Every structure is written in C-alpha cells, then in structure tokens.
C-alpha cells in the first residue's frame, strides 16, 4: 500500500530530526563547560580570583577602611605536604599592596609536583581581590624534603562595596606528582 510507504518515509524524516536533537544535546552537555566559564566571567559570580598575574596598577589608598583578610590552608586527600600560612589574619587598607608568605614542605623522599588552588569567600569579593604575584598561578616543584617560602602579593580594589568587612582566602594543596595515581587508586 502507498500509504504504508508514505508513513515509513515520514518516520525516517522524523527520526532523523530527533536524532539530530540527541546529538546536539550531547554536544550541548559539553558546551556547558565553556558556557559556564564565560557566563561567570561576564557576571563575576564564579567566586574565582584571577589565575594569572595582574599588572601592578596604582590605586588611591583608602585609609578610612580596614578589611580583615583571613588565610586558611588545607590539603587535598591528606597530601604529604606541610602547608601553612605565616599569617593567620591581616588587616588591610583597600588600594595598598601587601605581600604575605606561605610555607610548604614536601614530606616525602621523592620529588613532588603540587598545585595550590585558591577559593575565596564571600565569592562576590573575588573580582576585588587582585593578585599580582601568587604561588597558585603555577604548579610548584619540590625536591625531596624541600621546604619553600611562597609569596602572595595582592591588593584590594578600593571599589570593594562597603558591606564586606572580612574576606577569607583558602588554599588547598593538591599533590599532582603522578596524574597516573588516579588510575592506580
């Protein structure tokens, strides 16, 4: 019957369209990864501080305000690293540059590749916390048992809204020595 062929042809056309949606949505799932980055960059809501050194611009120092910066250090999956901040707290004026030191030590007898990942709270202050130098920009190499002083130089943008009095900066050290460690787990 002609009718049957007609329905078959209609089905084929429809299935093609639907399969196209399926493939497009699979792609969309992957596209969400960059979309989120772009969206968060544009809106400044991702709570991530800058990941490469910013230029050292001169700001007008706002002596009238004092912001408390807290430094927290932690380790991922009990990585064999000694990691601490020399300062736990620092009162700063917006617009003025400060350098603080962190200390990290490889506790193993092997060389180590490790990376510190920052996190800032409240997240919306991230765009006002500007780092001109940070050990977190690059992966760090440690010789066996080596300990290092690692500097962080930063400034608080004087544009920071008045409601923020305290900013907490947390670093987590990840042991990346063997990316293949993941496979062996």
């Amino acid at each position, binding site marked *: 019957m002609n009718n*049957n062929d007609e329905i078959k042809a209609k089905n084929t056309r429809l*299935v093609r369209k*639907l399969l196209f949606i399926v493939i497009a*949505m699979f792609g*969309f*799932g992957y596209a969400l*990864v960059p979309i989120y980055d772009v969206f968060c960059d544009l809106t400044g*809501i991702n709570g991530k501080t800058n990941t490469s050194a910013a230029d050292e611009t001169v700001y007008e120092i706002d002596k009238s305000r004092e912001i408390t910066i807290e430094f927290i250090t932690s380790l991922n999956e009990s990585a064999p690293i000694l990691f601490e901040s020399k300062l736990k707290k620092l009162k700063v004026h917006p617009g003025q540059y400060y350098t603080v030191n962190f200390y990290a030590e490889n506790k193993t007898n092997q060389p180590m590749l490790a990376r510190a*990942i920052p996190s800032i709270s409240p997240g919306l202050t991230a765009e006002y916390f500007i780092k001109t130098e940070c050990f977190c920009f690059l992966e760090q190499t440690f010789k066996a048992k080596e300990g290092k002083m690692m500097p962080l130089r930063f400034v608080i943008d004087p544009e920071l809204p008045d409601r923020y009095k305290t900013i907490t900066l947390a670093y987590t050290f*990840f042991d990346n020595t063997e990316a293949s460690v993941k496979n062996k787990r």
Partner: protein
Amino acid sequence: MSAVASEHEHTDDHHDHGPAKGWMRWIVTTNHKDIGSMYLIFALIMFFVGGTMALIIRAELFEPGMQFVEPQFFNSMTTMHALVMVFGAVMPAFVGFANWMIPMMIGAPDMALPRMNNMSFWMLVAGILMLASTLFMEGGAPASGWTLYPPLVLQTGDALPFAVFSVHLLGISSIMGAINIIATILNMRAPKMSLMQMPLFVWTWLITGFLLIAIMPVFAGAVTMLLTDRFFETSFFDAAGGGDPVLYQHIFWFFGHPEVYVMILPTFGIASTIIPVFARKPLFGYSSMVYATASIAFLSFIVWAHHMFTVGMPISGELFFMYATMIIAVPTGVKIFNWTATMWKGAMTFEAPMLFSIAFVVLFTLGGFTGLMMSIAPVDFQYHDTYFIVAHFHYTLVPASVFILMAGGYFWIPKWTGKMYDERLARLHFWLSAISVNILFFPQHFLGLAGMPRRIPDYATQFSDWNMVSSIGAFIFGFSQLMFVYIVIKTIKGKDCADATDEVWEDAAKHGLEWTLPSPVPYHTFATPPEKIPTEHF
C-alpha cells in the same frame, strides 16, 4: 460497540497471525503488546530488586548503631536502590504502558519503529545487568548516591567504568524508546484523530519523549566527563587541574530535574485517564491539562539549581531559581484542581484503580507542598540533604508514580487478559499500601526537620523512635506489594476469574479507543484505522 477493526479488511501484507511459537518469540518479537508486557514484567522484577535494597537500608536504620551491613555497602545500597528504581523500575514501567496502550489509544496497528522497539528493550536489560554486576566488583558498587557527584564518585573501585557504561546503555535505550513513541504519536494516529483529541496519557508521553531526548544525552556527556577525568587525565571536575566539581552538579541537575518529570508526567497522564472513567464524567479542563503539562516540561529546564542552593551561589542565582521553582506549583495546581473538579458531583465508584488514583491526588499534593517548602532558598539550607528531602521525593514517587503504575495495571489488565482481577484482594492491596506508605515516609519529615542527614548508616539516638516506625512501615509496604504479583498472576492464569466484557468498565468506550477492542485484546489491532473517535469525553 466492540467492532473489531482488524477484521474489517484483509490487507495484503498483514495476515492475522498470532504470536510466534516457542520462547524465541520473546527475543525477536516486534509486537508492541509483547514488548509492552516484557517492559512491564521487567519493571516489576526490578521494583522488587530495588525494594529489597530499600529494605536492607531500612533494616540497618531500624535501630541506631551498626547492625547488618558495612557503611560502604550501605552507601552502595542507597545508590543502587535509586538507580534501579529510576532506570530499572519506574521509567521502564511507563515505557511498558506506552508500548501497550499508545497504539491502541490512537488507533495504530503497532509502534512506528518495531525493530528499534525490540532493541531498546534488550539494551535496557543489558544496561541493568551491567549495573547490577558492579555489586560484585572489587571496591563495591558505586556508593556516591545516584547523583554520582565527583570527587567522591571518582573514588569508586573497579565499578566506575561499568557504572558509566551502564548509564550509557540505559540512556541509549530510553532515547530509542522516546524517539519511537514520538514517531508513533506524530505519524501513526488514526487520520480522524487530531492532536487535541488524543487521550492525555498519549499527550503526556509525547512531551515526556521530548524531555528524554533532550536530557539523556546531557547525562551521558556528564558521566563521560567523569570517565575521562578518572582515566584520561582531563580535569572537567578536578580542582587540581583547574576544573570545578560544582560544574558537575550544574550539568547533572540540568538532566536531573527534567528527569524527575519524566517519571511524573506519564503518571499525570494515567491518572487523567482513570479518574474520568470512575467519576463517569468527562475530564475537566482537557486543554488546560495539555498546556499545564507542556509548561511543567518547559519550566523543568530552568529550575535545576534548586537542588544546589547550598553550594554557594550568588544571591541573584538563588532568587532566580527560587521563583522559577515556585512557578511550577501553578500548572501543577491546575492539574490537581482539574482532577478534583472531574470527581466533583461525579457518580463515583471505588474500584482499585480509582482508589489508587484518589490516593495519588491526595498524597502527591502533600509531596508537592513539601517541594514548595524546599523551593524557598533560605529555608532549604535547613532541609538540604536531610530526611526531609527523602520524604519529599518519595512522596512524589511512591504514592504518586508507583501508585499510578499499580492503578494502571489494575485498570488495563482486564483488557489485556480478558479476565477481571480479584477486586477484593486488590482493594486489600490498596489499603495496606496506602496506610503503610504513610507509616513509612511520613515520619521521615520529622526526622529531617530534626536534622537527621540522609545517606548515613547510623544516627544519633534521638532519631530512634521515628526510624523504627518508618522501618516497620517499610516492611509492611514491601511485603504488601507481593499481593500485586499474586493478583496479576492469578488474573493471567484466569482460573476463578470472571470474564471481562469488551468495555470492562461501565461506559469506558466513551473514554478511549482501547475499550472498543475485544477482551482479551487480539494480537494485532487496528490494522485499519478506526472510523469513529470517541471525542466527546476528551
């Protein structure tokens, strides 16, 4: 009334032969009724597999302290219970109903793509078997919850790739099923049936089909990213490499929220089919039902982050997802109103399908209200990851989806087998289920509000009493479901069962084409499309 369409005319390529002989019939069948039965039986078996896992969880939680299982295995049980129930029981059960009923409801001879239909069923079996095999692997089955959040899920032992591939298989299976259903509905309808004359079960499945093809590929992508993060050194979700674990939650819930509607929209469809028959009235507000279903489906795509209010979203995000979520209560409220209005002043009788449907309307409303409570972002911080959310989604899944699946089973089994089920036993099954399901889940609201976290095998002693009550309810509920199996088997065997008439239910033929066919329904139906569509009741 019971004109047999297949006897009208002798078409050249369709001799009216019955099913093939022997067991190979079930392997190679392309008949929508056979495949529908296989889906339904498979779903019922998985319902008991998943239910057994739930009883292991409830047995462990009967008393504080560790009794029966290791914490790791307990977490595997919560994970596998959810995955088996979602992908093995509820979704396949609705696909089973779709296979059986959609062609009969729209006057089509079969599904549009019968061979693909067979393939999607056997892929489902393969996927579930692969998922079940992870229970016996080094390191145990996934124990991260069904959401499979990294970084925890990346610590799964050998099971991780198998779990990921089983999700792929299940995804392909449901995508094929969805494509088939959409093609059947759009291309195979009786020429006289317009879209706005379709029964609501068909409508809800059309919309669900589109949801499925939109979200399953995203989930497949998310688990593939987990796989490459673990084995191929990508860093989608690995903070050490510049990734972000919260990203996974965004992608997962972009799939996950529409997914919960995949399990509830066909529920709405079956309820809208059953209630008018036993209220002996047309469905109130047919077109508003269709539009409400479509709006719920649309809204489901823009509310996902209400599952993650506590991850530290900016306030603008919290507010957007909070208001968007609250809006869903409007179309859902329209539906509840319509079902109630359908029953209003109806000449109601209370056979088992109607009892289950009424319980669904009441208890689903309750589950909806707790959902509304949790949509309020500031208070969600208290409810998040407690037993309150467990109580909420079980109210929307068990006395809603599962009850309606039971209702649908009782409603259509006389049409399928030609025999009436045992009404007295079915009503007993209903009352046992309806009472025990509340003993089981209602106390979990109190536990959650008091702060008991979910997915933990032990708890502080102040939670003991309600946990014990909940566990007792769980065991009564679990064992009551064996009655359903007994009733179904008894009906299929047909001894001591009354013969069903063609209409089965009084005046049912006014409500749907399937009731114009003889009971038991012949192997091939509607070889030529029906002349008359019962439109007055849509």
